[in-house]
């Protein structure tokens, strides 16, 4: 087997008449921290579901760990469990991922399905609750948790299986700043674990922290690929893929203006002749 965890060769996926992924060819190497960037509807979530073998390609070949993935292959219990043990997906909406009566049951769900010994499950669940500082929520019903707590439970419930590959769908979406920091901290720390982490996001602010490689998707195709610094400097690419965002700020005279520029752009506050376009009184 080569060093690739996933290999996609001309993979397409359609939802009835809508093409979500269009002849996608890409490789994800073992130990890579990859960010999938793309605007809403670009195919990020669909790609993650394909990588987690929840969907299967309508056309093309998808290999995971060197083996072609298909519905027939995953129908075998041994193959299925081996794959589920190695790949974990954290869904964007934690509410769909949390369905057990208590937080403890939720974190124990995956290991139970995979048939771990019960003593090991008890030990690992406690360790995982402690790691994510959610031990105090152990007996709490998931629907009574805050958004940040739910996200931590969702992460713990996937990471307890110690997967080699973690797929995360918009992990910081709808989180308060503190919860966002916690999720980012986990992603930053994963740099030293040798684990493959694929994060779908459109939050450019976190890309450099969470990824060593960036794949930009647009309309189900790879629109660009490279190191985070290169991608974030490529204004044309970001604009084409609807990822460029204008920075707004207010000057002392109360007027606001916007700058559309590369993500890492810095500019001085100024009142000279090169002052950017002014937009008064509206954001």
């Amino acid at each position: 087997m080569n060093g690739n965890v996933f290999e996609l060769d001309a993979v397409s996926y359609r939802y009835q008449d809508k093409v979500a992924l269009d002849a996608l060819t890409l490789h994800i190497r073992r130990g890579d921290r990859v960010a999938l960037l793309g605007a809403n509807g670009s195919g990020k979530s669909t790609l993650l579901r394909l990588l987690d073998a929840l969907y299967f390609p309508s056309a093309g070949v998808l290999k995971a760990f060197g083996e072609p993935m298909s519905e027939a292959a995953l129908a075998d219990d041994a193959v299925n469990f081996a794959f589920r043990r190695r790949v974990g997906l954290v869904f964007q909406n934690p509410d769909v991922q949390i369905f057990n009566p208590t937080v403890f049951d939720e974190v124990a769900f995956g290991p139970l399905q995979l048939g771990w010994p019960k003593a090991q499950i008890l030990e690992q669940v406690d360790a995982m609750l402690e790691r994510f500082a959610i031990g105090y929520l152990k007996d709490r019903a998931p629907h009574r948790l805050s958004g940040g707590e739910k996200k931590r439970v969702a992460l713990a419930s996937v990471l307890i299986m110690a997967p080699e590959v973690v797929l995360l769908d918009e992990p910081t979406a709808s989180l308060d700043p503190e919860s966002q920091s916690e999720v980012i901290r986990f992603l930053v720390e994963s740099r030293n674990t040798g684990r493959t982490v694929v994060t779908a996001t459109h939050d450019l602010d976190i890309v450099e922290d969470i990824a060593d490689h960036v794949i930009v998707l647009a309309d189900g195709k790879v629109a660009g690929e490279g190191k985070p610094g290169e991608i974030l400097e490529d204004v044309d690419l970001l604009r084409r893929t609807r990822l460029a965002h204008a920075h707004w700020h207010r000057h002392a005279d109360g007027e606001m203006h916007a700058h559309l520029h590369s993500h890492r752009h810095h500019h001085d506050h100024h009142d000279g002749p090169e002052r950017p376009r002014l937009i008064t009184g509206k954001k």
Partner: protein
Amino acid sequence: MCAPSPVVGRHRQSRRRFADRFADDLTRALARAFDAEATSAQRGLLQGLDPRFKLVSMLSLILCAVLAQSLTLLAGLFLLAVALATLSGISPARLGQQVWLAVLIFTGVIALPSIVIVPGEPVWQVPWLHWTVTLQGLRSATFLIGRAETSATFALLLVLTTPWMHVLKAMRALGVPVVVVAILGMTHRYIFVLLQTAMQMFEARRSRIMAPMDGAQRRSLVMAAAGMLLAKSFQLSSEVHLAMVSRGYRGEVHLLHDFHARWRDWCVLLVALSLPAAILWSQR
């Protein structure tokens, strides 16, 4: 400032009543579902039984209610259900609210015609309509309602005193096919998804209803909401299923703690299984 006209006031009140009532109903349904989980976790007679034995015993008691051909026996079974509920920390008031009233209404609608249709000894004549209520008709209606109330009470006791996952595992242990158990398990989860989605949708709609609504508008709102709700719930349910599959779910129920039968489980089972046999023997 002008006071609102009585008509507008009435409309507004009606709109508020409709919106509030709907939201309250949804909240109450969710609260009941969560209460059931809490009740199954508290200490009590039925909570302490092995779920496999409890499931068989409750089915056996329901069979007794169906087989009973004496109102005294039916009343005895009903009182047994109430006693079991009380010893398990479930008050008769709660049973009345959650099962008796609903069953009475639904079964009552079906049973009501029988009191005048079934021929027999006249008891009373309905004024103006001149329909005759017969003793045999009353008896058959009472049987129908009594059996339904008693059976539903035993079934509710099982659900209220046993975590749903334990009920499913008990079913698997008793040989119920995995596909049936998986469907029941997913149905339970989807009901929660449906209720939560309905609540969110209705809250969002309520915040945007500005003008008074008449009956037709309210009906239209409910119909549109029902359609949207189904579509949204279907999508969410699929997501829930994918999230389960992603973590290795294959339809089988796995629990951290195994069931362990003790002597009292065997005693309860023996009594519960003897009852229908005794009823059948006594009614030979």
